[in-house]
């Protein structure tokens, strides 16, 4: 199998000339996602959380880089690994934690759990744990935009196993032939559960197959929030302009196993050197180095930001734990929106 080398810059480059405020806001959101996932990992270890949690640590630049290119009215569909997308699009951390704890105050009322987050008010119409599930439904809002003359785009986040599913091909062709404003974001973290990319494809060519379906396609360093954001902003602009569907493959890595709080190294599912290589390329550490070096913030300010975020996440988790679980007598509620 060919090994595609994604251009990796030694120093993150603010290619779009984002303001310091924007950069700090992006860093803050990435830290919020990291801290949330660390809290959840601890909650699972302590047996406070039962719902299967697929953690996003290591991939924060993807969700934030993409969502920073979106409006509230743009649509997003997510996967079983949905916490980062939910927070990046602007979802409430209180409602996220309440859902992870399966409380009635959760964003899905405790009926969804970790893999099924939604917030229609910010365009997140849902997350599916069927790995290619949103490849079909994610076309829908783009269809709406096209038919109603609106310029909102629909973003479909998915993992690198999804191009192995038939509906991926159906979806890309359908979007291309109808010139739908869809942005596909393939977060290629090199593994489908424990199966490596090389065991699942004859070639490292996801982005090339997407291009063959007629999509404008880019592959970027998924640990560089500026690179991801630039690719997303340009793709969104093209889609809004009526240039049809766009495909972005980000090359990244999840630090933990497919599900749960462990890295799966001692089980032999991944190699410690590989993990360490990617930890060196931490999307947050590298961004922090840059903002410190360029004087956007001081060490003290950064430390204080870390503390504030930790406190915010502590508070959200405590609130969730204190909230009630949904009452058993509500079991059949909301099966339909209009009862017969």
């Amino acid at each position, binding site marked *: 199998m060919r090994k595609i080398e994604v251009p990796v810059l030694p120093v993150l480059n603010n290619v779009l000339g984002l303001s310091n405020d924007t950069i700090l806001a992006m860093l803050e959101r990435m830290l919020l996602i990291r801290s949330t996932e660390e809290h959840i990992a601890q909650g699972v270890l302590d047996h406070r959380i039962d719902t299967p949690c697929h953690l996003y640590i290591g991939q924060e630049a993807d969700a934030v880089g993409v969502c920073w290119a979106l409006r509230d009215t743009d649509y997003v569909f997510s996967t079983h690994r949905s916490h980062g997308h939910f927070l990046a699009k602007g979802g409430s951390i209180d409602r996220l934690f309440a859902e992870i704890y399966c409380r009635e105050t959760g964003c899905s009322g405790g009926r969804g759990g970790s893999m099924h987050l939604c917030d229609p008010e910010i365009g997140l119409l849902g997350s599916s744990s069927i790995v290619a599930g949103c490849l079909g*439904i994610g076309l*829908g809002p783009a269809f709406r935009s096209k038919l109603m003359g609106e310029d909102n785009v629909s973003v479909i986040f998915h993992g690198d196993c999804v191009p192995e599913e038939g509906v991926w091909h159906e979806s890309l062709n359908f979007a291309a032939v109808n010139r739908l404003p869809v942005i596909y974001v393939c977060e290629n973290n090199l593994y489908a559960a424990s199966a490596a990319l090389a065991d699942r494809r004859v070639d490292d060519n996801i982005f090339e197959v997407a291009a063959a379906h007629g999509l404008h396609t880019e592959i970027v360093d998924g640990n560089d929030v500026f690179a991801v954001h630039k690719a997303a902003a340009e793709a969104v602009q093209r889609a809004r302009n009526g240039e049809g569907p766009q495909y972005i493959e980000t090359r990244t890595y999840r630090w933990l196993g497919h599900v749960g709080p462990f890295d799966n190294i001692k089980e032999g599912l991944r190699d410690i050197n590989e993990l360490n290589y990617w930890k060196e390329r931490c999307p947050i550490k590298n961004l922090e180095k840059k903002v410190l070096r360029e004087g956007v913030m001081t060490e003290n300010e950064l430390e204080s930001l870390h503390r504030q975020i930790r406190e915010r996440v502590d508070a959200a988790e405590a609130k969730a734990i204190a909230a009630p679980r949904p009452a058993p007598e509500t079991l059949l*509620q909301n099966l339909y*929106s209009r009862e017969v």
Partner: protein
Amino acid sequence: MGDRVITYGDAINEGHRIALRNNPECFVIGQGVNNPWFVGRTTTGLMDEFGPGRIMDSPVSEAAMTGACIGAAMAGMKPIVFHPRMDFMYLALDQIVNHCASWNYMFNGRVHVPVVIRGIVNRGGEQGAQHSQSPFGVYANIPGLKVVAPATARDAKGLLIAAVNDPDPVIYIDDRWLYGVEDDVPVGSYETPIGKANVLREGSDVTIVAASFMVQEAMKAAKTLDAEGISCEVIDLRTIKPVDMETVNRSVAKTGKAVVSIAEWGFASVAASVVKGIYDGCFGALKAPVRMVTLPDCPAPASHSLEAAYYIYAKDIEKAVKTLD
């Protein structure tokens, strides 16, 4: 707003036109939208009235096409997506079952899915196992879906309009064997209520409960049996999920005997669930075991000689009614 006699197929066409005129969010997509060999006359001429922006042919991609309509509904549209043969609709089952049906519940009522997924039953003519299925029970088994199956021209139009206006996903199943059936159909807009069965013929000796094509066969059987001195009440379920057991049981409580006939495989079927509902609702009133008239438990065959043994008609209902004494 007078009634006039039109066919079931033309009534479906009118239902589309009214839904499209009344709802700017409504659009129609499916394979062969202009092709009479795919859809009869049910969508003929829609492209001329509403344009290619709202009436669309589709790539041969059942999952993507159906998913796109489900997702469009989540974003506030009211799509009608059709499958010219229900056999091919299985390719979209993940989108329908895992996503469409569960979404309202899984997200606690925050994201509604007002989509209409239309499956056309198209059997006989030596088409064989993969062009002949009518799997009512597959969809009726799924919580979160509503499933309708009109048997008359009036309801074919009224249920389609009701389905488009309904805030939940509706599986609308029509049958090409009914496309030529004629009855009185109002000219303008009206809804046949979802979830309500219809007593099509009153009688005192036996209740025949049927859906879709078998309703017409039940009416023929009732006529024949009437001449032989057996008075049959015929109930057209119209909606098969949620099924209107109240209307069924009101009738069975009166007659004390029932035959349930739906052209589907009988095991784990809609018919079986209706029988169970009768036992639950009026066991004490029954004078005989309830009979089911459903398809034999095998795939649809091709050869006419085997088709004759496979499909069920009025005479099969008549036979079942006569075993009740």
